[in-house]
């Protein structure tokens, strides 16, 4: 058995920045077995909104049996989720999908944008714990200003706490570099330091496309986590596809079961 649907207890559901929420769920099986880059789906218990919502695993604590997800309120489902309280119960399924490869390299570049950042924190934790080598993190946000408060760089402190201080980019220049995370990476990095490095990225499609282009340019091993609308989350409905190269041709692969992490070389960004 590699996936379970668990009635989990919400232990934390805190507003963390702008429209971002930090949720922790007691789901020991998932906490025990999840690897970085995998995701869970959350069932809303709402007869009008029936499809489970996918969220990257942002942290998994085997000791407490808790998993963490960090989500943005972007629609009705995430609004329902944001109104749930501690001790409420909710069905969550996971761990789902193919995660990031973490072995075989000693130099790691993590590039994240917006709601793509959460699963990268989990990745960074696992890499750091395994003493996997040198890690650089580049995080992009739209803005860090909300209602006059500078609190928008969600999760940046969590990276610092594990000893990897992230470099920050914002679209409006409200913090750090003005621009996106891939551009910051180009500006900061010494090409000579990239030998044998692997790049890991998750974020908006435009950002992933830019990362894939950079990886090709610098000849880097590169893995990206992609998003697509899902129904089953189990590889059964063939709903969540991404266009990938296939023996000189192309084919549609399932994000939920063949991904969400793909080699950047494999993915077509034309759709």
């Amino acid at each position, binding site marked *: *058995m*590699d*996936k*379970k*649907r668990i009635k989990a207890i919400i232990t934390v559901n805190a507003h963390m920045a702008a429209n971002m929420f930090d949720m922790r769920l007691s789901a020991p099986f998932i906490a025990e077995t999840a690897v970085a880059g995998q995701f869970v789906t959350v*069932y809303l218990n709402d*007869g*009008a*909104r*029936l*499809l*489970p919502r996918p969220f990257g695993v942002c942290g998994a604590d085997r000791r407490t049996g808790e998993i963490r997800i960090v989500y943005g309120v972007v629609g009705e489902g995430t609004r329902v989720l944001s109104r749930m309280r501690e001790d409420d119960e909710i*069905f969550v*399924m996971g761990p789902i999908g193919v995660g990031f490869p973490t072995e075989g390299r000693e130099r790691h570049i993590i590039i994240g944008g917006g709601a793509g950042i959460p699963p990268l924190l989990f990745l960074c934790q696992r890499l750091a714990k395994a003493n996997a080598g040198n890690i650089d993190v580049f995080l992009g946000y739209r803005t860090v200003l909300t209602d006059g408060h500078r609190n928008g760089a969600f999760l940046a402190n969590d990276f610092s706490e594990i000893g990897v201080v992230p470099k920050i980019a914002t679209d409006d220049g409200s913090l750090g570099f003005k621009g996106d995370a891939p551009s910051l990476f180009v500006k900061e990095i010494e090409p000579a330091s990239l030998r044998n490095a692997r790049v890991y990225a998750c974020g908006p499609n435009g950002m992933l496309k830019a990362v894939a282009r950079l990886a090709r340019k610098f000849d880097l091993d590169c893995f990206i986590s992609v998003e*697509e*609308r*899902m*129904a*089953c*989350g*189990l*590889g*059964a*409905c*063939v*709903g*969540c*596809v*991404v*266009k990938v190269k296939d023996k000189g041709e192309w*084919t*549609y692969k399932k994000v939920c*079961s063949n991904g969400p992490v793909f080699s950047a070389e494999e993915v077509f960004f034309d*759709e």
Partner: protein
Amino acid sequence: MNSGVAIAGVWFKNPVITASGTFGHGEEYADFVDLNKLGGVTVKGVSTEPWKGNKPPRVVETYGGMLNAVGLQNPGVKAFLQKDLPYLRRFDTNVIVNICGHTVDEYAAAARMISEAGGADMLEVNISCPNIQDGGMAFGSDPAAAARVIKAVRETTRLPVIAKLSPNVTDITEIAKAAESEGADCISLINTVLGMKIDVKTKKPVLGNVFGGLSGPAIKPIAVRMVWQTARAVSAPIIGMGGVSDAEDAIEFLLAGASLVAVGSANFFNPTVTVEIIEGIEKYMLENGFSNVAEIRAQTV
């Protein structure tokens, strides 16, 4: 009490099967469901050659349901017979293979390949998919065209043939009668209801294919009505589906005249729902003193 049902000479240990395209080929749900417990599994539609399917997005939630425009992406009959069917055959459940095609000949060829290979208990002919350009629903919305497909399949196979009908027609009983007269042993209905969704932020249709098929609880009343009508128009047994999400829904279809009930999108909303429905039907039969499923159907005939 026995919840088993025989249709077209095939024995189902209970009246609950899965709907095509919503349960993969069973393996995807094996973490959640003991496949031995199901009356049957209808697999995702297969065609003679691999089909790439439609461009994404392919699925989107709507109020009380969802739209899909997968476009019947499948690896083709050969890969299905090599990899997927042997997996499912390990379980004690009926296997219904759903076939699709662009032309009458493609349907017949798929039916022949599957019959010759062995391993399927029944063939379901999808003449009702709204998501492909040629074939699919084009056959299912014209009685003469539906008859041609069913006739061609009938002539190539000795397996029991199920004609799967589209709700996107003026009079579903005409199509059902045409299919029955050309030798369909059973009628299954309904496939998805043609629909679409527009994103008011981007001001564009959400689905890559623009149109998609609506499924889930939102379509159940349409499906119940059509099962009721069809049950009164043909004598072939009926497999009812459309929005079934719990035992009460399933019993509603039995009362409308279905012999078997298929569970579709509800598998996405709760992966263990099939087993819960089987248990619920058995409980209902005990509580209401029914000794077999036909007695439920007889309540309204």
